[in-house]
C-alpha cells in the first residue's frame, strides 16, 4: 500500500473501497472482543470456516471477527448479514445449523435468538434487544461493523474523515474552539473540561510536546477502555491525530497494561497500518503534520492509572505517584508539556469534529455532554458494555438496559466507580449520570457499575475491594498503605465474627485521615467503599459486630453460627 499523500487521496481510497464492497454480500460477523474470546469464540469461528466449506455459499460469504459487540453476558454474539439476524451464546455445535438454516436458508433459528428473561419475548435483530435498544451507541456502535485489524473496514464506515475535515478546513485554534464548545469533559472521572486542557497544551511553550492516551484500566469489573481500544483502535488514533494537530505535538503514547494482550495486539496492528497508509509518521496526508504514535505497555498495577505514576512508568521509572505542583500541560512527561486524556475522551474527538460541537452538545445534561460507556456487571441479567447519554438515571441503566436483577432477586446496591467509588442504594437510584451530580453524591464517574443483589454481603464486598487495594496501592505513603492494612484487618475481624464495639468509628477515623492525608487519588479514595457502605448499610455492620450474624449468609464463620 503506497502512502496516501493528501486528504483528497484518502477520500479517493475510501470511495474505491466502497465501490468494491458489496453491501448485500452475506457476512457472518462474530464478536472478537475479550469476553467472547474467553467464551471460546475462536472455536465458533473455526466451526464457521469449516461449515461453509463445499457448501453453495463457499466463497460467497465473508466471515468477520469484529470488535466487542458489548453484550458480553450472552457471548459469543454472531450476527448474520445482510439480514442482521443476531444469535447469542453461540456454541460450535450450533454452527452447522446456522449455516444451513440461516446463511443458506434465510430462516431464523428461534432457540438461538435473544429471549427476554423477564417477558419471554424473543428479539431477532440486534436493535430489538432491550439491552441495545435502550442505549445510545455513538462511540461503540461501529465495533461490531468492523474488523479492528483491518484499517479499510474503518475507512469504509467513514473513518478518518474527521482528520480529513480538520486538515482541509480547520485551523488548530478552530479545533480547540470546537472541542471547548462541545462541552467535552475528561472521561477519567474528574471531568476536567477537555478543551481547556487542550488549550493549555497548545499555549505551552516548547517544541516538544506530548499527548498521551490513558488506556490503563485496572478496576475490578471494568473493561471499557480495553474493549473500546481493541474493538475500534483507529477511532482512538484518529482522535489523537486531531489532538496532535491542534496542540502541535509530534509524539504521542497509548498507555496500556500488559494484562490486556488483545488490546495490545490490535493497537500495534492499527498503528502499523495507520503508518503504512500515511496517517501517522512524517507529513501526514501531505499536510506537513508530523506525528509519531507509540504504544507503551506497562507492567500493570492499578496505581499506574494515576497521572504522575503513569508518566513515571512511561519514563521508565517505578510507577509511583509523586507530589507535583506544576500542571502536566506545562511540565509533564520528561518535563515537557503533556496532555493526558483518557481513552474515552479521545474517541469522542472524531465524533465532535464530524458532527460539529453544536449537535454534539445537544446530548447530555447542561454541564455533562455526550455519552458515557460503562461496564455494567454483577448480578444483572444483561451485563456488558453499555453506552448511555449523560443524564440517564442509574435505575434506567440497571433495569431497562441491564434487564433488572437475576433470578428475580431483590436489588441491593450498585457500586459506582470501582475500588475508589461508593455504593448507591435503592432509594438513590434516580441519581443521574452527570459529573456534578455524581460528585455531589460523593461518587466519581468511574468506568464500572457493579450491581449486587440481596445475596451479597456488603461487608464482604468492601473487604474484597480493600484486598484489591492492599496489593494495588504502591505502598509509598503511610495513610494509604497502613490505613488499608488496618481497615482490612478490622473488616476481616468483623466478617469472622470477631468485630468489636467501636470498629465502625475506627474505620471512619482511618478513612478521614486517608482521605485528607494520602498522597494520591488512590489513597484519598480508598475509603470510598468503606464510608458509603457504613452510610447506607450500617445495620449490616452492626449485625456482624453485635449479633455475630451475617444477614446475607455470606461470611462463613457467622453463617455457620446460625445454621
Amino acid at each position: 500500500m503506497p502512502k496516501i499523500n493528501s486528504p483528497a487521496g484518502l477520500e479517493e481510497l475510501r470511495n474505491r473501497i466502497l465501490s468494491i464492497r458489496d453491501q448485500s454480500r452475506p457476512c457472518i460477523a462474530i464478536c472478537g472482543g475479550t469476553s467472547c474470546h474467553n467464551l471460546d469464540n475462536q472455536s465458533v469461528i473455526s466451526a464457521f470456516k469449516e461449515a461453509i466449506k463445499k457448501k453453495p455459499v463457499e466463497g460467497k460469504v465473508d466471515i468477520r471477527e469484529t470488535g466487542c459487540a458489548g453484550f458480553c453476558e450472552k457471548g459469543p454474539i454472531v450476527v448474520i448479514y445482510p439480514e442482521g439476524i443476531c444469535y447469542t451464546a453461540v456454541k460450535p455445535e450450533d454452527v452447522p445449523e446456522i449455516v444451513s438454516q440461516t446463511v443458506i436458508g434465510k430462516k431464523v433459528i428461534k432457540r438461538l435468538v435473544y429471549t427476554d428473561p423477564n417477558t419471554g419475548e424473543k428479539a431477532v435483530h440486534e436493535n430489538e434487544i432491550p439491552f441495545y435498544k435502550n442505549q445510545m451507541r455513538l462511540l461503540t456502535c461501529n465495533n461490531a461493523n468492523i474488523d479492528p485489524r483491518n484499517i479499510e473496514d474503518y475507512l469504509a464506515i467513514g473513518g478518518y474523515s474527521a482528520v480529513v475535515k480538520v486538515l482541509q478546513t480547520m485551523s488548530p485554534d478552530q479545533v480547540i474552539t470546537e472541542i471547548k464548545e462541545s462541552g467535552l469533559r475528561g472521561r477519567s472521572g474528574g471531568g476536567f473540561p477537555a478543551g481547556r486542557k487542550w488549550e493549555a497544551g497548545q499555549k505551552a511553550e516548547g517544541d516538544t510536546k506530548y499527548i498521551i492516551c490513558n488506556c490503563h484500566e485496572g478496576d475490578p469489573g471494568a473493561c471499557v477502555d480495553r474493549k473500546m481500544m481493541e474493538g475500534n483502535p483507529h477511532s482512538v488514533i484518529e482522535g489523537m491525530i486531531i489532538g496532535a494537530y491542534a496542540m502541535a505535538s509530534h509524539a504521542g503514547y497509548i498507555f496500556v497494561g500488559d494484562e490486556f494482550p488483545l488490546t495490545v495486539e490490535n493497537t500495534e496492528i492499527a498503528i502499523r497500518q495507520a503508518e503504512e497508509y500515511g496517517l501517522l509518521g512524517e507529513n501526514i496526508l501531505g499536510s506537513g503534520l508530523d506525528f509519531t504514535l507509540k504504544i507503551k505497555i506497562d507492567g500493570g498495577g492499578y496505581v499506574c492509572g494515576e497521572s504522575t505514576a503513569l508518566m513515571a512508568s512511561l519514563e521508565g521509572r517505578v510507577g509511583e505517584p509523586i507530589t507535583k505542583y506544576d500542571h502536566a500541560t506545562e511540565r509533564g512527561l520528561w518535563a515537557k508539556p503533556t496532555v493526558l486524556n483518557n481513552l474515552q475522551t479521545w474517541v469522542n474527538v472524531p465524533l465532535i469534529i464530524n458532527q460539529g460541537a453544536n449537535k454534539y452538545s445537544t446530548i447530555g445534561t447542561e454541564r455533562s455532554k455526550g455519552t458515557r460507556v460503562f461496564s455494567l456487571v454483577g448480578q444483572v441479567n444483561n451485563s456488558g458494555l453499555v453506552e448511555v447519554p449523560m443524564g440517564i438515571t442509574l435505575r434506567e441503566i440497571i433495569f431497562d438496559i441491564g434487564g433488572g436483577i437475576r433470578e428475580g432477586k431483590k436489588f441491593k446496591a450498585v457500586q459506582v466507580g470501582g475500588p475508589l467509588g461508593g455504593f448507591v442504594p435503592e432509594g438513590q437510584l434516580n441519581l443521574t449520570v452527570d459529573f456534578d451530580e455524581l460528585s455531589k453524591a460523593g461518587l466519581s464517574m468511574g468506568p464500572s457499575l457493579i450491581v449486587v443483589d440481596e445475596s451479597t454481603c456488603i461487608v464482604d464486598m468492601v473487604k474484597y475491594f480493600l484486598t484489591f487495594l492492599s496489593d494495588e496501592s504502591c505502598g509509598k505513603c503511610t495513610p494509604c498503605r497502613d490505613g488499608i492494612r488496618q481497615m482490612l484487618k478490622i473488616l476481616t475481624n468483623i466478617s469472622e465474627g470477631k468485630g468489636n464495639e467501636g470498629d465502625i468509628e475506627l474505620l471512619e477515623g482511618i478513612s478521614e485521615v486517608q482521605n485528607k492525608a494520602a498522597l494520591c487519588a488512590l489513597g484519598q479514595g480508598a475509603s470510598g467503599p468503606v464510608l458509603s457502605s457504613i452510610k447506607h448499610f450500617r445495620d449490616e455492620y452492626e449485625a456482624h459486630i453485635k449479633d455475630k450474624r451475617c444477614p446475607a449468609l455470606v461470611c462463613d464463620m457467622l453463617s455457620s453460627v446460625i445454621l
Partner: protein
Amino acid sequence: MGRIKMSVVTLIIDNKEVEAEEGTTVLEAARSAGIDIPTICHHEKLKPYTACRLCMVEIEAKGRINLDTACSRPVADNLVVRTRSETVDRIRKMLLELMLAHAPDAVELQDLAQEYGADKARFEKEPSFCILCGLCVRYCAEVKKKNAVGFVDTGVSREINFIPEIASKECSNCKECFPLCPTEALQATYLLTHALAFPTTPF
C-alpha cells in the same frame, strides 16, 4: 556556577511573618523561623518524598484552604500556613498510631506520640519494624549513588531489602544509612540479609 540571586517572598506561618527565598519549601521556611513541623521521611540532603505525611499543614492560598505536605510545598507570597489545627493534629495522631504499630518503642515516634496523644497500642503490633520512610533507600540512591538497598513489592507487602550483589561490595565500608533509620531496625535488616545471602562470611 554562580548562585542565581533568588527573590524573597513573605508568608505567614502560625501568625508570624516569615521571609523565605523563592524555591525553598514551607518546611524550610518554618524551621528557619524556629517553628517546628514534625517529619519522619524528610532529610535535608534528599529530595522531598512526601510519604510519611506527618508534615501536613493547613495552607491558605488565594482564599482556599488546603492540607499539604510542608516538606514539598514551595513557598509563595501571601501563603498563610497553620502548622497546628484540630484536623492537622488528628491526622498526625492517626499517622503516628499507624507507624507505632510497627515500631512501638522507636524513640523518635514516642516523643511525637506524647505531643499528639497517640496511643502506641491503638493497633495490634505488626511483624515488621520498618515504617517505609525510605530514608535508607533514598540516601543510598541520591547521596551515595549505590542503590544497595531498595523497595520491593507493592501495597501492604512493600518492604525494603538490601541487594546482596551490591551490598556485599559497598555496605561494609559505608553504613551511613544506619543512623538515619527512625525505628533503628535497619541494621537488623542488613545483618539478616547479609547472614542469609552470605552464610559463610562473618559480618
